[in-house]
């Protein structure tokens, strides 16, 4: 199963990004193959509509869960209709590596 984690940088030591639509990178982690991929977020500096565009980007990778610090009001209903699970994790100091360890534990 694929999980998307919003990340501020493109390494395992980078911190969890607290925003969803305008995060720096998306980490796509596969819990079965343990493979991962960092996708730079093209909508980082978008004026508006960053959230829905990011949803499209993440949904195209067939993820089933998204871990982020916060989800906007537009995103919630969109992800609900796409049946993607949202996990709100308000720990800005956690690194991607720590979150992946939690998923594997």
């Amino acid at each position, binding site marked *: 199963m694929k999980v998307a984690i919003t990340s501020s940088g493109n390494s395992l030591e980078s911190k969890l990004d607290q925003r969803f639509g305008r995060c720096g990178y998306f980490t796509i982690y596969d819990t079965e193959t343990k493979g991962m991929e960092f996708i730079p977020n093209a909508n980082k500096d978008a004026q508006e509509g960053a959230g829905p565009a990011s949803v499209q980007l993440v949904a195209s990778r067939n993820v089933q869960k998204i871990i982020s610090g916060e989800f906007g009001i537009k995103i919630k*209903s969109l992800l609900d209709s*796409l049946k993607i699970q949202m996990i709100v994790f308000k720990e800005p100091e956690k690194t991607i590596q720590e*979150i992946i360890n939690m998923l594997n534990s």
Partner: protein
Amino acid sequence: MSPRPFRLRKISNPAVISGFKPYGNKKNGGKTESVFLHLEEYEALRLCDYNMLNHHQASVLMDISRPTLTRIYARARQKIAEALVLGKQIIIEGGKIYFDSEWFSCSSCGCYFNNPEKQEEIKECPLCKSTNFSNYEPIHDEPEESLTRCNDICICPDCGFEQPHRFGCPCKEEICPKCRHNMVRKGTPHSRNF
């Protein structure tokens, strides 16, 4: 003056099918017209007729007013009746709605998560796999109380005892605790007869 803003209807369960097709239509040579049942109408029908809620309870769940819910519900029945009588097919789609799901909070890692798959129950926290989680209400805008209370008053026609009216309980089925008489709604033409 600008009109009052349109309130989006909250849908908690998307329909499992996208429509119904009639069969055995002898007229029209097999051609069938369609009726578009909006998702909000489907939801109103589901809450009122399948879950057996009254209109007020259903309206709170859909985050709209009771008269609006009743209007949507009437439209839903009108459309389904039209489909049945004229042999039209029903297509469930459209409507100004948003989806909502249940939220949970995990007490061991402190995260919040939702359940996008209504049919399946959540067994563990998706992040830390602990079973130590509980239901979480993001915004408690309307407490349960609003489901059972309004400003109307039930009055006993015999002894004049008054008590607040409860939703879903017809006044005439309420029994006066003092004289065991059936009660009536205060202020209605009926109650003035006593």
